[in-house]
Each structure stands twice: as structure tokens, then as C-alpha cells.
């Protein structure tokens, strides 16, 4: 079977700096994959290239949504990438501060809704039911993530861990087949990390999702991941199961050169 995400020779240069250098990563359906590497290795850049925020200098990104044929993401804008089923979260939380928790999730539904200007103003029956459906769907997502008690709170007023989870909820609302999580456990306490661990597994098992995450918390990565990709200085240096990666001398070298607080 085709991998659902297939990245070939991805290269990204900023000025003279090669942030990514011929990176190849493939993700299979139903996998939880992790992308790890020291700080500044180019992990977030990799996300940005895939999701259309940056236009890669070279390389191909192909997706094969389950049950559909392959297509390239070349030249697509971020919103078009999201429409095709890739959703992401951000390393530094980027919630919409002027909206309630529910509305934040409903934003995720945006690309699955159709209401136009007149639909929104006149609100015919079809739009009404669409709006209602979106509201309930969003609420259900909040329930799944465990944020239903915050429904009408403003997003900024949420505790930190809840904000991270809300980001995931918002991404889920776009109906993705592949979820890209950028350091979802950053800043969480052990209890919250544990819950996150369960959530990610639950998502994969019950929501028919594949997940690619960037994470520094090695305990989480090792326990969660089916497959781990390691990058350093923009180059992919290793790939394999947690066990393989752990014993890979290249990886050890890369991490020993780094401040090992997060390794």
C-alpha cells in the first residue's frame, strides 16, 4: 500500500542556510510516527514545508488519503493543504484569543462548511442545519478531548494544558487523516503528559487517524511511536522503531553533542 504521506528529497534553504537537506520520510496509515532531533534541527521547518506555510526549495510531498488516489501538495496554500486532510498544531500555542473554546473548534469545521455571504446573512434552512451540525460536531470533539466543561470560556482563560489539548481539538475538527502535532507535551506536567499519551493512542485507534509528532519528551516518544525519524542539521540521520533508534550510534552522537536535558 502507498504511504499516506510520502516526502521525497525535501530541501529548504533560507538565504544560504540549508534548514532541510534532502529529507525523505514516509508515513503509513494508522502509524504514530515521531520526528525527533536536537533543537534547531529543522523539525518545525519540516512541518511548515508540508503544510504550505513555506514553499520548499526542492522535493516532493505526496499524500494518499485513505480510499483516494495520490496527489502532490506542491504549490498549495496552507488552507488547501488542510482541506486535503492534513491538520496541525503549533509549538507555541496559537489559539484564537478573541473566541470561545467552542468557536475555536468550530473554526476547524470551516473548510467543511459552505455558508457564503448570503447564506450567513439570510441563513436559509440548509445553512441553519449546517451550522447546527457543526456546533454539535465541535461539541462532540470537545467531549472526546475532555474540554466540554470549558465550552463557553474564552480560549485565553484556559489552563495551559487545556490550551494544548484545545489545539488538538481544533485540528481534529478539520477532519484530517493525518495529524501533525508540534511538541504537544511541551510545558505539561507528568500527569498531563500521561493523559496526552492516552489521548493520542485513543485517537489513532478510534478516529482512524495517523499521527506525526515532533516531541522532545523522549519517554513519551518511545512509548507512543511506531516509527521514529531522526533529523539533525536538516539531514535525516536515522529511522526505525524506538528500539532501533535508541541504539543507533548516529543518534547518540547527535544528542550527546546537544545539551542533553531533553534527551
Amino acid at each position, binding site marked *: 500500500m502507498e504511504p499516506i504521506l510520502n516526502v521525497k528529497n525535501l530541501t529548504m534553504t533560507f538565504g544560504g542556510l540549508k534548514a532541510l537537506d534532502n529529507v525523505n520520510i514516509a508515513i503509513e496509515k494508522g502509524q504514530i510516527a515521531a520526528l525527533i532531533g536536537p533543537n534547531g534541527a529543522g523539525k*518545525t521547518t519540516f512541518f*511548515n514545508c508540508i503544510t504550505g*506555510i513555506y514553499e520548499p526549495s526542492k522535493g516532493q510531498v505526496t499524500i494518499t488519503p485513505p480510499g483516494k488516489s495520490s496527489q502532490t501538495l506542491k504549490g498549495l496554500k496552507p488552507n488547501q493543504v488542510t482541506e486535503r486532510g492534513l491538520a496541525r498544531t*503549533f509549538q507555541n500555542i496559537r489559539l484564537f484569543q478573541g473566541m470561545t473554546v467552542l468557536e475555536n473548534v468550530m473554526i476547524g469545521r470551516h473548510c467543511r462548511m459552505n455558508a457564503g455571504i448570503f447564506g450567513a446573512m439570510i441563513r436559509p434552512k440548509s445553512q441553519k442545519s449546517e451550522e447546527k451540525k457543526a456546533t454539535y460536531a465541535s461539541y462532540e470533539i470537545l467531549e472526546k478531548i475532555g474540554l466540554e466543561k470549558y465550552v463557553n470560556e474564552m480560549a485565553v482563560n484556559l489552563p495551559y494544558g487545556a490550551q494544548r489539548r484545545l489545539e488538538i481539538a481544533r485540528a481534529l475538527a478539520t477532519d484530517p487523516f493525518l495529524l501533525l502535532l508540534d511538541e504537544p507535551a511541551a510545558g505539561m506536567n507528568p500527569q498531563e503528559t500521561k493523559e496526552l499519551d492516552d489521548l493520542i493512542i485513543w485517537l489513532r485507534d478510534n478516529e482512524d487517524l495517523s499521527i506525526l509528532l515532533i516531541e522532545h519528551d523522549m519517554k513519551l516518544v518511545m512509548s507512543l511511536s511506531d516509527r521514529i525519524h531522526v533529523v539533525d542539521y536538516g539531514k535525516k540521520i536515522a529511522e526505525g522503531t524506538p528500539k532501533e533508534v535508541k541504539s543507533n550510534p548516529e543518534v547518540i552522537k547527535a544528542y550527546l553533542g546537544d545539551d542533553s536535558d531533553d534527551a
Partner: protein
Amino acid sequence: MRWIYITIGVAITGVLGFLGIREVVSDPVYFLELLLGGLTRGSIYALIALGYTMVYGIIQLINFAHGEIYMIGAMTALIVASVLGLWGWNAGVIAILAVVFAVVYSCAYGFTVEKIAYKPLRNAPRLSALISAIGMSLFLQNYVMLAQTPEFMPFRSLIPDFAFWEPYAHIMSSVELTIIVTTVIVMVLLGILIKFTRIGKAMRATAQDKVMAALLGINVNQVISTTFVVGSATAAIGGVLIACHVGQINFFIGFLAGLKAFIAAVLGGIGSIPGAVLGSLVLGISESFFTGYFWSEYEDVFAFSILVIILIFRPSGILGKHEAQKV
């Protein structure tokens, strides 16, 4: 798509270039006069634009009241000069004292305005500070109008006609010469201030990151106040010089001049000091040429069109740094 743009661009430049060269060759003196006129006009904008750009650079606020500070500078100079003139002081002393008072008072007003209308709003939405600035601008205009007069008052030039410049005075008057020279000096001094002095470094640090600057022991409030004071000082100098140039002032002169200067600052890349000067010169010279060779009715339309075109191709102005979005 790109090629179409380039072709159109080349075609337009070519046609304009050809016509332009033909015009220049047919009447080079006229061309020179327009160029010098444009330089003066640009320098006028620049003196006001510098203050705008400094304040914007540091607190990202369009200081709408900046034009009023400029007006207050000119007004103070007028008042001081009139009083001293009546007391029969020497013209040279009057000129110097008028400028000194104008600068000191403008600085004081700039400082006070910041403390009243902007400081309490430091953490508020940016638009609130903008409206506060607009309110301040209205207030100052009406304050001066009520305390003095709504009418235009003649402003006798404080700058004498230099004897050595007399042969060229019909091309460029002494006042215009002074304006251009002063602009250059002010720009250089500001450049030195910002690049090399302690306070300048503190300003740059604050502009980059207020929180970090505060953590490093920089007194952010003091730096912001200093910025307002320095910006107001340049505005005051501008106010006096421009009043000498046009020979009249009233309470409302700050608005239009301020608007143009702000456009110039944005054109050059707001927050950048050389940018403000370059933007002003580009604006001044192109306005001058447009009036000279086309129709002065549409001078402002042309100025705005240049602005739009430049901003479409360089969204942060000519010398503005394009800030990459951090994700």
C-alpha cells in the same frame, strides 16, 4: 505571470524614460529646478517623518499628535520671536532663542503627551492608542486655536538671506538651502545617536523586544520618553524651518504636513531612519516632477499611487526589513 509583469514594467519604464530624457534635454534648467524643489519638499517631509518613524519604531504607534508637536514648535518660535522683537533684541539672538525655545517646548509637549495619552495604554489594544493619539491631536489643535487665534499669522523668516548665496537664490532660496542642510545634519546626528550612544543602543533593544530589554536592566519607560523627546525636537526644528519657508502658520498646519510625512515614513519603511529620509525624498521629488511635467491636480493621486505600487512590491517599504513570520 512574472514575465508579463516584467515586460509591462520594462515597457513603461522605457516609454517614460524616453519621454523623460527628451524633456530633460529640451529644458535642463527646468528639470534642475524641479529636482531642487523636490529636494526641498522632501527635506521638509523628512524633518517631520523622522519623529514619526522613531516613535513608531519603538512602540508601533502612529503618533497622530506628532504633527501638532511640530505646529507647537513653530507657534512657540513665533511667540518668542515676537516678544523679543518687541523688546528690541538683536535679530540673530532672537533667531537662536526662538529655535531653542521651540525645541525645548516641543520636547516638553512630546514628553507630556506621551505620559498622558500613551503610557496608560501601553498594554491596551494598539488601535486604542491610535484613537487616543487622534484625540490628543484634536485637543492640541483646539487648545492652540483658542489660546491664540484661528487665523493664519505671518511668520517672518528667522533665516536671513545669505549674501554668499545671492547668485543662486533664484534657483533655491537661503531658507530652502538651510532646510536641506539641516535635514542632512539631523539625519546624521540621529544616526550617530542611535548607532553609537548608550541611549541609542537601549532604544534599539527596546524596539526589538520590550520585555527582554527590561530584563536586561533597561528602563523602558525612560527610553520611550527619550524617543518622544528626540522625535519632538526634530519636529520643532522642522516646524521653525518650514514656517520660515511658507511664511505663515496657524493651528491647523500640523495635520496636512503630518499626514504627508507619515506617508513618507511608511514609504521608506517605518521604523527606519534612513528609510524616513529616503521615503520623504522619493515622495517630494516625485510630486515635484509630476506637478512639473503633468498636472498638479493629481499630484496627491500620483503620490499615493507610488506608495501603493511600492508597498505592493515591497510590503515593508523601501528600506523596511521584511519581517519573516515566525511560526
